[in-house]
């Protein structure tokens, strides 16, 4: 768990990231987290996992491979999700104006480290 925390904190260090989590995709529950105050980790985990599940079924029905990066953009921020091994997800919640490009790269790197 200490290893997971370190991996997540690297992602959280990116400008504009409000929190990062490791989520069990099938159950939508938190495995590890690095969150700022004001973020409901359980809600992020459950809702993001549900959205990711729907996206996976959508891309499968379109004949595409499984997604490697998923991004929900909203008025006041974003949620990014990157699958990792063991049906886990790296999930990040960002502010509006966050460095999404760097966040994406750090999350892909984090996913490779979660093995």
């Amino acid at each position: 768990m200490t290893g997971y925390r370190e991996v997540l904190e690297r992602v959280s260090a990116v400008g504009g990231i409000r929190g990062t989590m490791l989520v069990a995709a099938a159950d939508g529950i938190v495995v590890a987290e690095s969150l700022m105050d004001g973020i409901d980790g359980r809600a992020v985990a459950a809702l993001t996992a549900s959205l990711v599940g729907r996206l996976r079924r959508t891309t499968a029905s379109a004949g595409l491979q499984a997604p490697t990066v998923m991004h929900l953009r909203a008025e006041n921020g974003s949620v990014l999700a990157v699958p990792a091994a063991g049906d886990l997800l790296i999930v990040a919640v960002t502010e509006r104006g966050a460095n999404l490009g760097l966040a994406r790269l750090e999350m892909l790197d984090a996913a490779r480290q979660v093995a």
Partner: protein
Amino acid sequence: MSDPIRAMTAELAAEPGSLVFLDLAELLRRRGQLAAALKVAASGVARYPTLADAHDLRARIHSDLGDSEAAFDAWMDALELDPSHVGAHKGLGFLYFRAHDPVRALRHLETALTRSDDPGLHAAIARVRAAVTEADQAPPIDDEPPPAEGAVRAMAGDLPFSLVEGPASSATPSDSDLFAGFEGARDGLLLLDAQGMRLGGGLRDADGADVADAVAAHLAGVSREAARTARLLELGAWASVSAECGDGNLHLCAPTAEAVLLTVRDSSIPAGRLALLADRAAAAARRWLGGTA
């Protein structure tokens, strides 16, 4: 009181154990006299608790009254007594379809088809197949003509549901104007209403197969989930959902409150550029929707 109802009422009064209660309650239901129909049906069920047709009739009346739960229970009662009861399977099929569970709906309707060759049932099944959302989809019906809307409506008229819930899935006459000039207008841009019904555009997979309906069946759920996620996480209104896959990228957005637009390209188009393409297509969709309103 009209003559047939009067005659059947008299018969039932003279002989309370008569099965005429089935015809009487059905006639009252069709005439919209639901309270009276329910009274007759409930009394009949109490007298004949093992008669599946009585439970089926009770379910139809409950459904007309808007009580889906009671209708569901009554149709399940009918199935317990007669596992292949056509009316019960049809009724449950429509209830599940209305509850956005087309897989269960299809299962029930196909079971009904083994005991009934109703053309309306064929049409309804074709309609539901297009909406199947689970990974193990039913194969598309390539060897049958597309269902005539009249046939579907006729079938729906038999039951207290409206199966046809939105505009026809085929493109409108002005569909060719929708994404005119856009690359991928027919195979990489798909416009849907909020219920997941196609409004225009098309989608094909890498092998050229038409996957528009199959994908459309998922997209209403994705947009609703995106809206809910953004709202509950206090991120405001959702703007877009994108996914990068090894062999392609997709971008979903809402040109208006009542429509969603899917843009799909191969992986040579990066996500950022895809978002710009989608913005332009969304603007085109807004102009077209404004013209068709």
